């Protein structure tokens, strides 16, 4: 592999890793406050991409459509929490998990019934798909923009977590819901904020996905969601930094293994789960996690 190809794949890996990272942050934050693997999260991503797509179809420019997609995903995220998860706050965690899987099936099938299962072509604006070249490397601009935006979003999320009182409440909630309430904090409001942040990021990840593989379908969230979940576990579930690290590791590995061993290309989706198994076998707390019983961001 010569340097040009290496650099090219590096950028591709960063771009793919960014999408995983954005979606993994939502998994990890919801886990932090609710101890729930929100299996509907990948489908929230799909909802975000679809809403953006429909907004664009009705003539709204991409940037505004993206905001509609983010807002729509956030609303669906809040609704799943209020309708499906909130009545189960005191229930055994397994009930919550099964409910999350139910919501996932519901969203996938609802969108299949409403809009059909045929993939729809996603026409990203030209400035994102334009090819530019640096020396011998040819790249669409999106692969530069996607990781940049992701790191910017990560900075904002970390700022919220560590510099605002809402972030402080989110971190405290990961330890002790009862005590947080005694501090006069409305725990349900804080959980809602977590769903807003997680779902918004998932929507952005979904739109990035749609831009890179220019098509969307109602089942797009399944495999990407599961991989992002693997990334969150790899990085250490509950840790936002870990989710990003895990996402990028997964992105780079997937791209490089396929680049170096093209004959393994058909198995690329398996790597994430291979990692997942290894992590669970040898370091269940992941790269940046310490103790599963104590959430941490």
């Amino acid at each position, binding site marked *: 592999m010569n340097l040009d190809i290496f650099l090219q794949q590096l950028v591709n890996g960063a771009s793919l890793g960014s999408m995983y990272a954005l979606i993994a942050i939502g998994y990890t934050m919801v886990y932090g406050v609710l101890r729930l693997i929100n299996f509907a999260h990948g489908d929230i991503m799909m909802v975000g991409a679809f809403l953006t797509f429909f907004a664009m179809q009705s003539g709204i420019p991409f940037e505004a459509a993206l905001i509609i997609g983010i807002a729509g995903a956030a609303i669906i995220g809040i609704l799943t929490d209020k309708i499906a998860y909130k009545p189960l706050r005191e229930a055994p965690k397994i009930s919550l998990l099964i409910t999350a899987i139910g919501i996932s099936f519901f969203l996938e099938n609802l969108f299949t019934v409403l809009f059909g299962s045929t993939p729809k072509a996603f026409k990203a604006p030209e400035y994102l798909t334009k090819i530019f070249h640096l020396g011998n490397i040819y790249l669409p601009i999106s692969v530069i923009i996607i990781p940049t935006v992701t790191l910017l979003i990560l900075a904002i999320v970390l700022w919220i977590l560590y510099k605002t009182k809402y972030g402080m409440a989110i971190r*405290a909630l990961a330890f002790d819901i*009862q*005590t947080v309430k005694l*501090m*006069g*904090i409305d725990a349900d409001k804080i959980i809602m904020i977590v769903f807003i942040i997680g779902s918004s990021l998932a929507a952005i990840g979904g739109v990035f996905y749609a831009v890179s593989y220019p098509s969307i379908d109602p089942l797009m969230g399944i495999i990407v969601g599961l991989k992002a979940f693997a990334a969150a576990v790899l990085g250490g579930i509950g840790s936002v930094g870990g989710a990003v690290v895990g996402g990028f590791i997964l992105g780079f590995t997937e791209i490089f293994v396929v680049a170096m061993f093209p004959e393994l290309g058909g198995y690329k989706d398996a790597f994430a789960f291979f990692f997942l198994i290894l992590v669970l076998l040898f370091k269940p707390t992941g790269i940046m996690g310490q103790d599963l019983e*104590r959430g941490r961001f």
Partner: protein
Amino acid sequence: MSDAILKIDNITMQFGGVTAIKELSFNVQKGQTYGLIGPNGAGKTTIFNIITGNLKPTKGFVFFENKNITGTKPNKVVYKGIARTFQNIRLFKSMTVLENILIGFDAQANYSYFEAIFRLPRFFKREREIKEKAYELMKIFGITEFANTNATALSYGNQRKVEIARALATNPKLLLLDEPAAGMNPKETDELANIIHKIKSDFNLTILLIEHDMKFVNRMCDQLTVLDYGAKIFEGKPADAIVDEKVISAYLGDFSHA
């Protein structure tokens, strides 16, 4: 009766078939330090959980400042002016001492989302005031040097102080302390007693205290109730409690049946 800040009125609490508290009533007067003692499993912490709204009693009422607060949610009870600490210290781990205390001020930080997001001047002013108050609290407890240390890195005695400071940050009128001296050595216990005396007069508090250390109870409490199997077996002055036959038999076993 009008100066009773807290009135426990005929409370019964059942968990399934088990009666944890049976028709319990007592009044805490404003400015008192009131003790709640009894053997393990007597229902002391259950009463705390009922007062702070974590549990809803099967029967009976809690009145605070002559208002019925039975079943008020925990995050609303705090605004009425009630704060508590826990028997097993429950700090927010991996957050600093300062952050732990700042969270207590959340109840008073009355700026809106809008102000927080757009960082309006009032927001900064409030943030600065709150931080100053947090440092004042830490100074009273002698834990200023740990402000930026992870709460879990502190000694047990100091963690207890952080927990009380965090409770005070919510600006309570009534402070519920669940075994504050548990696990402390005599020197730490002595120091704690002094601090509680100080904060009580500085912050104009009424204190309801669960404790096993009778020396500590004797020193701190004006009045106490002794519980056994969820029922009141004694109410009065600490000095009288330790010579009361029922109290002695509850703690040491009933020798007459032996």
